[in-house]
């Protein structure tokens, strides 16, 4: 081989996409939600009331918080099936402790700590023993629900004055109100969005989801990141459980049944890939809105039998997702 001495000009490379392709799914989702909202406004009187939109937030604040935690997990390519059960367990523990006269100031951190601990446990199992996340978190789910029933099979009411006050507090802005839970949920969303976009840890989450093997070779602490996301998810479930206990003022083992699916659905509808590495927290918020909006429309419809309710929810989801897909589809 002869040595080539000629110096060639460095390649000039044109920018390929003027609009960042990666923001397209979120944008499309937002547009579709507006359309759906418009549909509601046109069809149902009273739908245009701003309170309706706020109600969606009020009714889904806990789901939003849980979905935030789930977003972290899914971004690393994992999944957390335990969230619904941990939420239920939290309501149960909160109710039990309050019933036994513990002060709210102690119960609150205990609840959060418990959620985080369960998450941590699953994270450790997933990382150190290489158990598939699905199984580890399914075991977590059994465990948490099991503990609920072990505590009590009936629901326990909450009448702690602090809890009741927070639960009934309505923050009025103009003619509309939101609850404290909504505020908490929004703060959580903002913090989480900041963490994902602006901290080293947040970017590690994306890297691990992109390719864990590579991330490890790049010198990132994959194990730490992985354990951390499950802990965060557990913490969010704990917080979600606290919010739910505000919402319900009771603890019950059957609370939040199937919430894991709602949370996963919200995250995925929001454009996050289940395989990890791609997605935005804003998408998750939109995903929760989609689910809430569908439910609101169904309630406003008001004359659907139980089965038509299900069929319509499925139909709405289908139309939404196919449209979303059609808009964002890239040509091969």
């Amino acid at each position: 081989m002869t040595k080539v001495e000629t110096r060639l000009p460095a390649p000039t490379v044109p920018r390929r996409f003027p609009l960042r392709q990666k923001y397209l799914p979120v944008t499309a989702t937002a547009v579709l939600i507006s359309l759906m909202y418009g549909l509601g406004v046109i069809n149902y009187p009273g739908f245009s009331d701003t309170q309706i939109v706020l109600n969606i937030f009020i009714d889904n604040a806990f789901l939003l918080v849980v979905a935030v935690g789930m977003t972290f997990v899914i971004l690393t390519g994992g999944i957390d099936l335990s969230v619904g059960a941990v939420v239920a367990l939290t309501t149960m523990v909160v109710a039990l402790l309050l019933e036994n006269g513990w002060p709210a100031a102690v119960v609150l951190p205990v609840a959060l700590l418990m959620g985080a601990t369960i998450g941590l446990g699953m994270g450790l199992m997933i990382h150190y023993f290489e158990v598939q996340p699905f199984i580890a978190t399914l075991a977590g789910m059994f465990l948490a629900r099991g503990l609920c029933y072990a505590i009590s099979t009936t629901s326990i009411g909450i009448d702690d004055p602090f809890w009741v006050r927070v639960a009934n507090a309505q923050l009025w802005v103009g003619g509309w109100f939101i609850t404290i839970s909504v505020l908490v949920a929004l703060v959580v969303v903002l913090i989480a969005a900041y963490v994902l976009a602006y901290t080293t840890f947040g970017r590690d989450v994306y890297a691990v989801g992109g390719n864990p093997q590579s991330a490890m070779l790049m010198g990132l602490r994959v194990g730490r990141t992985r354990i951390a996301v499950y802990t965060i998810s557990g913490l969010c479930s704990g917080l979600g459980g606290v919010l739910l206990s505000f919402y319900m003022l009771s603890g019950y083992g059957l609370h939040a049944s199937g919430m894991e699916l709602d949370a996963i659905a919200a995250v995925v509808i929001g454009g996050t890939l289940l395989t990890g590495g791609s997605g935005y927290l804003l998408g998750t918020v939109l995903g929760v809105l989609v689910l809430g909006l569908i439910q609101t429309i169904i309630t406003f419809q008001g004359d659907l039998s139980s089965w038509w309710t299900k069929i319509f929810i499925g139909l709405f989801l289908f139309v939404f997702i196919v449209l979303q897909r059609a808009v964002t589809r890239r040509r091969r």
Partner: protein
Amino acid sequence: MSNLVRHRLFWPVAMLLLLLVGNLAFTPGFFAIELRDGHLFGALIDILRQGAPLMLVALGMTLVIATGGIDLSVGAVVAISGALACQQISQLGDQGAVGGVLVAVALALLLCAGLGLWNGFLVGVVGIQPIIATLILMIAGRGVAQLITGGQIINVNSPPYKAIATGFLLAVPVPVIIAAALVAVVALVTRRSAFGMLLESVGGNAGASRLAGIRSRQLIIIAYVACAVCAGVAGLMVSSTVSSADGNNAGLLIELDAILAVVIGGTSLLGGRFSIAGTVVGALLIKTLDTTIYTIGIPPEVTLLFKAVVVVVLCLVQAPAFRARFARRRPTAEVSA
């Protein structure tokens, strides 16, 4: 021996045996199998018979998971299949007519195949993430099942239909035969044709598979159709067990058990390599666990805790990393458990 221990299925099988032995301790005649009126009876037979629907659903799920997908709608398909079959049969003049029942069964399975096609279309052609694509049918499908039954439980009084779940053929319960046959067919088709390998390829690396000229669309659709048909057969069994169709409760949460069975059997949820034998063992393990809970009489309040413990223990002994730690302390890790 150490080769045996290292085998992928060693720990699930060991766990299965352990549970069975545990049952024996509580119910002395647990392993006894007797021939009564020319029919096989016994606890082990019951487990096989009761486990047949789960095994079938898990079997189909294995194929879907091998493509890197997941099918949440199987429970709804179980319900729809039973509902349609019962609804058809209940309208027959003579419910005992074998021909009429066959038509009803065929119709139900055809509908299930159609539902599978729908899932496969959404995943393979439209390109929707499997979990969401099948979530649609999971929700709407329950509605459809209830629509068919009118929200009521449809009763049928049809000996041929009842035979699907409670009959015997050559002393063996019919559902066991059906499940075994389907497992055999799927195993043969996947391993004797190139279907299994191509499926694993698509699940392992979809991009590379496309560039190798594999028609992944076709494979994905087939996998979802097969999954739905398996679920459909399971649905027939479930409704035939009690000669009635319950649109809301039939197959409720079976998707979770099925996925668990597949994963216990050593198939990764990320797709790629799959093991049908593993799935069968997984399904049997789960069913045995259920039976154990009833026979030992574990109080309902702690049933889930018990399940959690079993799953955790199983995961841990299966995890190579865990065993490595264990083995380091005790070089001869040949425990008879």
